[in-house]
Every structure is written in structure tokens, then in C-alpha cells.
């Protein structure tokens, strides 16, 4: 396979190295002359200095015969444009873009770039797996030592079985407000029943956070 890579940073460099070692033909387009020279020195004549977003550069790189085009610079907008030029000017069938802002994934798909790779998303999902499932989000610390926090009530929580007035909360903790799943704010009363998906805003002490989380999101007994 012939693979054109735009961006000769760490990602582009190691990608090219692996691909060449696997027997593919690869070319790295890098804007910075020193970086391009460094790649050529280490990996052989597979680096080209130039702006990978420019049609003329892609022409020289032979994008037209590329089986795969990958843009891995550190800037999402450069990766988008490089891929769009490859697709629309050179009819490359398979283009892959690296994205840094995970929210750009949807945008890229709408703009015709189907395959995106986001290191940020991968790391985020790893972190989320390590965290307790329904964390308490600290919103604001008050000078008095209290903290205002937000908790989302999960399915199957013990707090769904009782009226608010009957849920035992840690000392000095109090529920201040509820935003229901329809997005309507509610004033809590002792007779309020929580529902799964409700976002609860509460005031608590730093040391009571964990107990409050357990009281609101812990499984029913």
C-alpha cells in the first residue's frame, strides 16, 4: 500500500516507521525543514518538506495514487483541510484525520471525513473507567468550608426508594435543588421523590462528600 502522512511530529514519525517496517510504502509531508530532514536521516528518503494542505504539495507527493491518506498534525483545522484536499482534488478513497478536540469528531464526519482518531477521547475513556461510576462534581467552594456539589442519580440507586425526607444524609449536608431529566429545576421538599437521571445540587462539607455520594447514588439495600 502507498500511504501519505501529513505531519512529521511524534505521531507521524512513528506511524511512518511502523508502516515501512511492515512493508508499506510511506511518505511523510512535513512543513518544518529541520524536522523533515531529521525524518529523512532516520527513516531514509521518505520525507518531503512542504505544506500538506496545499494541492501542489500533494501533487508532488503523489496523493493521486495513495491507497490511504492520513493527517496527523497537531491542528485539527490543518488535518481537516489536508484530508478534504486529498479527497476532493485527488480522489483518495480512504482518508484518516487525527483530531485533538473530541467534539470535532461529529463535525469531521458531517464534512465527509469518516475516520478520525482522537488521543484525547482514548485517554478520557480510560480515565472514566478508573473513576467511581457516579462521581460527585464539586461546583463551588464556599469560604465557610462548605462545598456546593452536583450528583446525578443513577438507575437502581437506593435513594429512589424513599421520600427525600426519609433519606439519611450526612451531618451538615442538604439538598438545595433538583434539575429533572426534562431539564426543569425543582425545589426539593421532604415529600419529593427522586427519579433516575435527576441532577441534584447539594451543599456539604468536604469531609462528608463521600458519605453524601453513597447516600444518593449507592445501590438499594
Amino acid at each position, binding site marked *: 500500500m502507498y500511504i501519505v502522512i501529513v505531519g512529521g511530529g511524534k505521531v507521524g514519525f512513528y506511524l511512518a516507521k511502523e508502516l515501512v517496517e511492515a512493508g508499506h510504502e510511506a511518505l511523510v509531508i512535513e512543513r518544518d525543514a529541520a524536522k523533515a530532514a531529521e525524518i529523512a536521516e532516520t527513516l531514509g528518503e521518505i520525507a518531503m518538506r512542504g505544506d500538506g*494542505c*496545499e*494541492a501542489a504539495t500533494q501533487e508532488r507527493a503523489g496523493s493521486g495514487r495513495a491507497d490511504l491518506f492520513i493527517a496527523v498534525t497537531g491542528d485539527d*483545522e490543518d488535518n481537516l*483541510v489536508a484530508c*478534504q484536499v486529498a479527497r476532493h*482534488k485527488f480522489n483518495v478513497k480512504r482518508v484518516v484525520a487525527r483530531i485533538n478536540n473530541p*467534539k*470535532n469528531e461529529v*463535525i469531521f464526519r458531517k464534512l465527509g471525513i469518516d475516520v478520525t482518531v482522537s488521543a484525547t477521547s482514548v485517554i478520557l475513556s480510560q480515565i472514566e473507567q478508573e473513576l467511581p461510576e457516579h462521581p460527585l462534581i464539586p461546583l463551588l467552594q464556599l469560604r465557610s468550608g462548605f462545598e456546593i456539589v452536583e450528583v446525578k442519580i443513577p438507575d437502581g440507586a437506593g435513594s429512589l426508594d424513599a421520600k427525600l425526607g426519609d433519606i439519611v444524609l450526612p451531618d451538615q449536608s442538604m439538598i438545595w435543588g433538583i434539575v429533572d431529566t426534562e431539564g426543569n429545576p425543582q425545589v426539593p421538599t421532604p415529600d419529593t421523590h427522586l427519579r433516575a437521571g435527576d441532577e441534584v445540587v447539594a451543599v456539604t462539607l468536604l469531609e462528608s462528600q463521600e458519605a453524601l455520594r453513597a447516600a444518593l447514588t449507592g445501590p438499594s439495600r
Partner: protein
Amino acid sequence: MKVVIMGCGRVGGALATRLDAENHEVTILDLNEYQFQRFLPESFGGRKITGNAVDQDVLRRAGIEEADAFVALTQGDNRNAMASQVAKHIFNVPRVVCRLYDPIREEMYNELGLRTISPTRVGTKMVWEELGV
């Protein structure tokens, strides 16, 4: 008309100033706050936002969802191309104008449905005519 302008250079600043003077609702964005001081008059009544308009959250803050028009005038063709496409295809802004220095990219994005202007193409043509060759 509600207009969001990305990039407060000479063109962005002059355009924002004129729209504001003609009572349009203008929001202008730039990465560098100093640009507002440099290219907007003190009398400017529109909103100034420091941030990168390639980020959709920043565009939302600038009121892109209610905008009647979006103009991309930064120094970077790719930034302009991306933000314009986001404004047009994600936020459905009715009128989007995108400046692209590179005539080849300008031609391509024009074919892809953006309203594009290439100062390189326009400038060369004007100078050519002035030369009378």
C-alpha cells in the same frame, strides 16, 4: 442583521466597525485581545470575544446559533475553511463568507458550496489591470 466575524485584522476590524455604525449586531472574535485595541475604534458597540472560533463552544458563545451571517477573516486559510464549514453545515448560518488566500483551496471550497473570496486572485487581477500590460 446579526453578524459574527472571526479575525480582527484590518479587514475584520473595518467590516465590524462599519456594520456596527450601521446598527447591525456585531460579534467579533480574535485569538489576541490586542487586535481589538488595534483595529476597532473606542466607539465600537459590538461584542468582542477572545478565543479560537475553530472551537464550536467558542462559536456558540459568540451567538452563532442565532447569527444571520458569519465571516471568516483570520490569517489562516485552514482555520477560515474549517470555521466556515462548521458555521454553514453544523449551525446552518444562512450567509457564510470565507476568505482564502490560496486560490486553489478557494476554488475547491467554492465548489463545495462556500462563498469564498481570494484576495490573492482579486489583488493580482487588479494590479494586472493597473499595469496595463
